[in-house]
């Protein structure tokens, strides 16, 4: 991928022009055909994908049922990245991301990113810090949602839901 194109990717705005040019050497410009899988649940994390155009569907397997659609994402609605957790984490992907139509994306492959980290490249650390900030914000929101559910259950006073509430609070990690 040419450096000029990387400079045009809004997600990389936090990097300087020189740093974006450095990243241009490791990112891959990828086209996914309709139905093609970008990230597969249970699979190895592939890396960070910055969506440039098109829509993706996010599905989660539910045992004994059909897959649950979690979200439809597209750059226009503000959610332009997928796989950001998998860039830093060793845990398997927790949902499947599939192209709804033709999808254009810029990929930061996990292994190349890890090699940059091992090599002490500041630009890779800057990306990691940026993703850490995104994850911190999301974890905080998720925690608040969990608390809100617990409060809602409390307001209803459903005794049969007490176990559910307690489980939520027990399983919740800080």
């Amino acid at each position, binding site marked *: 991928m040419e450096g000029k194109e990387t400079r045009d990717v809004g997600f990389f705005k936090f990097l300087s022009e020189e740093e974006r040019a450095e990243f241009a050497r490791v990112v891959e410009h990828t086209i996914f055909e309709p139905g093609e899988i970008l990230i597969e649940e249970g699979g190895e994390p592939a890396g960070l994908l910055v969506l440039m155009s098109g829509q993706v569907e996010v599905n989660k397997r539910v045992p004994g049922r059909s897959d649950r659609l979690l979200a439809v994402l597209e750059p226009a609605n503000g959610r332009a990245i997928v796989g950001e957790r998998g860039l830093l984490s060793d845990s398997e992907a927790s949902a499947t991301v599939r192209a709804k139509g033709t999808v254009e994306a810029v990929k930061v492959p996990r292994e190349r990113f890890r090699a940059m980290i091992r090599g002490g490249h*500041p630009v890779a650390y800057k990306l*990691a810090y940026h993703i*850490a900030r995104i994850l911190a914000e999301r974890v905080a929101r998720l925690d608040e949602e969990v608390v809100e559910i617990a409060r809602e259950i409390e307001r209803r006073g459903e005794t049969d839901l007490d176990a559910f509430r307690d489980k939520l609070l027990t399983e919740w990690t800080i």
Partner: protein
Amino acid sequence: MQETYLEGLPLFKDLTSEERAELEALFEPVSFETGEAIFEEGGPEEHLYVLTSGTVEVYKEVFPDRWYRLAIVEAPAVVGEIGLVSEPPAVATVTAKEPVEARCLPDKIFLEKLDAGSEAAYKVAYEIGRTLAERMAHTNECIAKVVAQFEESEPKRDFDVFRDKLMQEWSF
């Protein structure tokens, strides 16, 4: 005498001894009495603390005037590391369960090191990112289990909206 209190802590595991020494020089000693708050939920979270002795408790006010104890953290350990990568106020209260000795690093100084391109600061930020990513993976799995159980129980319809919000916050 050279201090080595960062050695052995997972957050600083990838630092060379020189990098650890570079960061250790920035910390100040601090102590807390039993019951004293290190962070208060909703208040500022502007320091990273390395606990060198003692134990702290982590509480969250889930219902008005009702606090749930989420964790007990025993030295050696780190608290407040998420504050280094986030703006929001502290999401929980951390209090000393017994007298606590700690070293304290203001977030501001850490961020200055990061801006200056300190490799030690970069490595710590990377490790925080990895911690958050693993925590998100764990939370995702916990929520998936809970939602699966929830869907098998009745009544459930009123909670669909909350369940959907939870799902949307997932990070994959």
